[in-house]
């Protein structure tokens, strides 16, 4: 299914070009913004190179964990159009199918994301030996939290046919709170402490700073992330099952 979805790039070469152009444009604009802020703000306040490296890493990681909630959007669309019924009558998992389809469609983003992470590591210094013990738990947290966000937002489609903007609303919230617009280590300490109590930093920020190399998460924050990951995964699957039951009763 993933390979089938990726075939569209062959049919429309403009899609490859525009996919690459989109990523380059975004990186370029954010990079330019931070360079201008770094250059024209009081000395020492902002290190543009540090932030550009961080930005490359965190946005490069996004497609690997579906943190743009594209799977959620696709699930909402499948429910709204009735395409989910076709998945349900086949011997395939209705949760995994959008994942496979999205991976195929995301091929350009995944390739460019990998390149971004490599360049970001090169720019900012990269993974250090002290970060290695954190790697497995932080990776697990990131994967579990993003999976549960995608399932949970996707399940909104079972309860309202107009869930597309719900996904957008959540994405806007997550983008700032997980440190994608601005690194959390640059925020005011009391605000950063409050953020660490939410599931968002563990959903991407912790992994980004591990690859960035200049900062490490605290074990307490990683533990909070693990608690959130377990709880949200449980809740999201429950909500999905509840929605699916409702859909099977009236949807097919």
């Amino acid at each position, binding site marked *: 299914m993933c390979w089938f979805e990726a075939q569209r790039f062959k049919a429309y070469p403009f899609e490859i070009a525009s996919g690459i152009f989109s990523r380059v444009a975004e990186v370029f*604009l954010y990079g330019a913004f931070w360079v201008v802020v770094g250059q024209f703000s009081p000395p020492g306040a902002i290190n543009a190179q540090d932030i550009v490296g961080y930005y490359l890493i965190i946005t490069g990681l996004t497609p690997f964990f579906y943190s743009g909630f594209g799977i959620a959007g696709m699930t909402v669309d499948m429910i709204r159009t009735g395409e989910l019924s076709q998945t349900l009558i086949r011997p395939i998992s209705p949760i995994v199918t959008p994942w496979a389809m999205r991976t195929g469609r995301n091929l350009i983003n995944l390739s460019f994301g990998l390149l971004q992470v490599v360049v970001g590591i090169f720019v900012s210094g990269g993974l250090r030996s002290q970060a290695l013990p954190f790697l497995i738990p932080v990776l697990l947290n990131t994967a579990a939290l993003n999976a549960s966000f995608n399932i949970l937002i996707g399940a909104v489609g079972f309860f309202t046919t107009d869930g597309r*903007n719900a996904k*957008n609303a959540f994405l*806007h919230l997550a983008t700032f709170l997980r440190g994608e617009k601005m690194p959390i280590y640059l925020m005011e300490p009391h605000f950063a402490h409050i953020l660490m109590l939410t599931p968002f930093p563990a959903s991407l920020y912790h992994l980004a700073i591990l690859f960035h190399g200049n900062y490490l998460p605290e074990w307490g924050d990683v533990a909070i992330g693990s608690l959130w990951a377990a709880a949200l995964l449980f809740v999201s699957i429950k909500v999905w099952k509840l929605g699916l039951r409702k859909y099977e009763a009236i949807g097919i």
Partner: protein
Amino acid sequence: MSNVLRGFSLAFAAFREQARAEKAHIGNFWFGVLSKLIYNTMFLLFIDQLYARVGHFAGYSKNDFLFLYLTSQLGFYICYYGIFFPMQRLVQIVRNGNFDLLLLKPVPHRSFMYIQGMQPYDLIFTAAPSVAILAFLINWGTLQITLGSLLLGLVVWTSGIVICNTIVFVLALPVFKTGDATDTLSTFYSISSIGQMPYSHLPGFLKIAALVVFPQIIIAGAASEVMLMKADMIGVTTLIATVAVVSIFAVNLLWRYALRNYTSVSS
């Protein structure tokens, strides 16, 4: 006179049809309001955290930056609902063949397409709360704006929207050649992802790139800079207005080229 009245009546009918279609999805409408409120709240938090860190940058105080952000959002909403959506509709109707029907109608085709495609209901009702909150947060008394700078700034802002229209049309153009432009058109989100940069402080190549690729920098950065008298007002306005006029000629030529291309293969 009767032609003008007929034009208005047609435009109103197309407008009303689109507004009805938007109102049909009321859940999406409310989530849309919520989405914009959240986006703006998050951006305000971003500005708050940024200024807590830097104090000021490039001559912009926090209040100036809020004004820049308001200018940016107003322009973005107009480009998004008034330009991007009609282009999205253009791509759809070319793909499903309905463009033929539009060409058969005795109406000014391009104007009709824009009016029918824009989302007035969403533009007014979902964007208004966010814009009102932003306007409320600005301390208008401390902004350095004169009537002249405001007018010149409005010229720059409008020119930015005109340039944006040309760029978005170029992004939709592949549909006439290859049969699809969904992804090329989606790059609109990337090229308008951030424009809150003071135009005169940008390096030369980025100033040029703003004129031909990143119109949001003109709409936000250049327009607010001129309004706040932080740049060479006459120089910046002349340059950007000239580019806007050139872009109007360019978009007219491209429209004719697209029509020629479409009519030669579709019938």
